[in-house]
């Protein structure tokens, strides 16, 4: 048995933010070939570029589950770039300490977060490219919503996006 802190055990027993998001802006599935652990992560990004919602599922030991839970708690509300900067040592600190042998457990959370952000960015990029081809300049692009200037024809843009992206995307004119 490892010497786990009370906080870590609490995150293992009652992990925060477990599950899936209905229509995530970013989704990732990563695995650690060294230890066989696996993690799914969903994120939603708000208009300001902060992580508005986050949910995970993990196959792993108590250390892996607790560090995934901690990472989601620490990331929620942070700008993407800030969340990506969270270090293993900060996760360990957040959990009230961690056996050094278990530090590697939190690596998977980073990989999952980075992959989910990559997925989010790729989805945004795809939409931006389509809009660019149409000659439309958006105010804001998210995987599930697009804000346009008042001059644009929202219905026409929405139709094209839905056809090309094969996903429900709301188009609003601001």
């Amino acid at each position: 048995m490892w010497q786990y802190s009370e906080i870590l055990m609490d995150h293992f027993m009652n992990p925060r933010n477990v599950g899936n998001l209905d229509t995530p802006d970013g989704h990732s599935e990563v695995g650690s070939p060294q230890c066989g652990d696996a993690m799914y992560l969903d994120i939603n990004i708000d208009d300001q570029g902060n992580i508005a919602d986050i949910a995970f599922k993990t196959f792993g030991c108590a250390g892996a589950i607790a560090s995934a839970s901690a990472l989601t708690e620490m990331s929620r509300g942070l700008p993407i770039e800030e969340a990506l900067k969270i270090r293993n040592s900060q996760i360990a600190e957040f959990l009230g300490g961690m056996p050094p042998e278990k530090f590697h457990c939190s690596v998977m959370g980073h990989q999952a977060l980075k992959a989910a952000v990559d997925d989010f960015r790729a989805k945004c990029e795809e939409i931006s490219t389509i809009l660019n081809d149409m000659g439309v300049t958006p105010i804001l692009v998210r995987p599930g919503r697009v804000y346009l200037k008042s001059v644009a024809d929202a219905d026409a843009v929405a139709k094209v996006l839905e056809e090309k992206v094969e996903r429900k995307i709301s188009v609003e004119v601001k």
Partner: protein
Amino acid sequence: MNTVYLDNAATTRMAPEVLEAMLPFLKEQFGNPSSFHSFGSSQMEAIEKARGQVARLLGAKCEEIFFTSGGTESDNQALRGAVKIDPARKGIVTSAVEHPAVLETAKALQEDGCTLAIAEVNRNGELDLENLRELVNQQTAIVSIMAANNETGVVMPLKEAAEVAHKAGALFHTDAVQMVGKSPIDVHALDIDILSLSAHKLHGPKGVGAIYIRKGIKLPPILTGGHQEKGVRSGTYNAPGIVGLGKAAELALTHLKDTVASEQSLRETFEKRVLASCPGSFIVADNASHRLPGTVTVIFRGIESEAVLTLLDMQGIYASSGSACSTGSKNPSHVLYAMGVDYTLANSALRFSLSRYTTEEEIDRTVELLSKVVERLRRISPYIE
């Protein structure tokens, strides 16, 4: 908190009778059995009594039993000794699912110039006898096949394997650490040349074991020194340990029939109830033709074994897994790997091993908690929809 100990394949609690038998040799009877004076030499009687007790459990003769420090030492002597007997025979043949005491020793000897061949097992963890036949030849010094596997409980075909070895003129050794005291074993009926056993697996003390060497075989020692045990194993007699091993062997023999029956029945109850109450679970080597009565490995699909162990541990229930998650690398069990069990499934495997002290109430409590723990972890699992 009442604890439930289901890790008897790792080690067992010492029987109270064993401790009683040992105590005089830890207290007033401290003399060296090899001494001339009667204070020491009188202890040889107790040591010879223990030798008889161990011999009876194995169906061996007294002069075929030599005391060692345990299973690892006995395995080492079997392999290291065997390759020294005949310069024309430097081959070791063993199986893929052996205990590290055999596998690592065989690999070390390979580095020293011996040849090593490893026989496969099938999906049920049973030795592939055809493969063994292909690997054994006139250069083979020793064939070493475990009596029963420590993870799956699968019992190996010792008589058949011994026949393969003997046809080629090789010695046959079995690491019977998991078998002795838990299931009947008769060295002469099975035609075994060398056998390793350990006291602490049969409710005896730690740090003592024995090696059975069939009469007529001159197995070179690995420990040289004061010529104790007819020079087969030097070192001052561990009198309390040896007496403890003897008593444990005697008790094991007395209880053997009941132990087999009760462990078998409790294990079957456990398996049935786990399968019924834990979705996604299955028994490893379920279709093997012969398994130990009290050892079972269960795979809980979609959840990681160490997480389960941690949650069980918190409630005082102690089991084990083939792998530990530490320092960035988890090596799933080589036994499950050899059986072709998928990597993720191997990381979901837990072993439960019973003893003659295990009660039905303990099994009930374990199953009850397991179903809760499994449900809890399945909710977090990415592998479960």
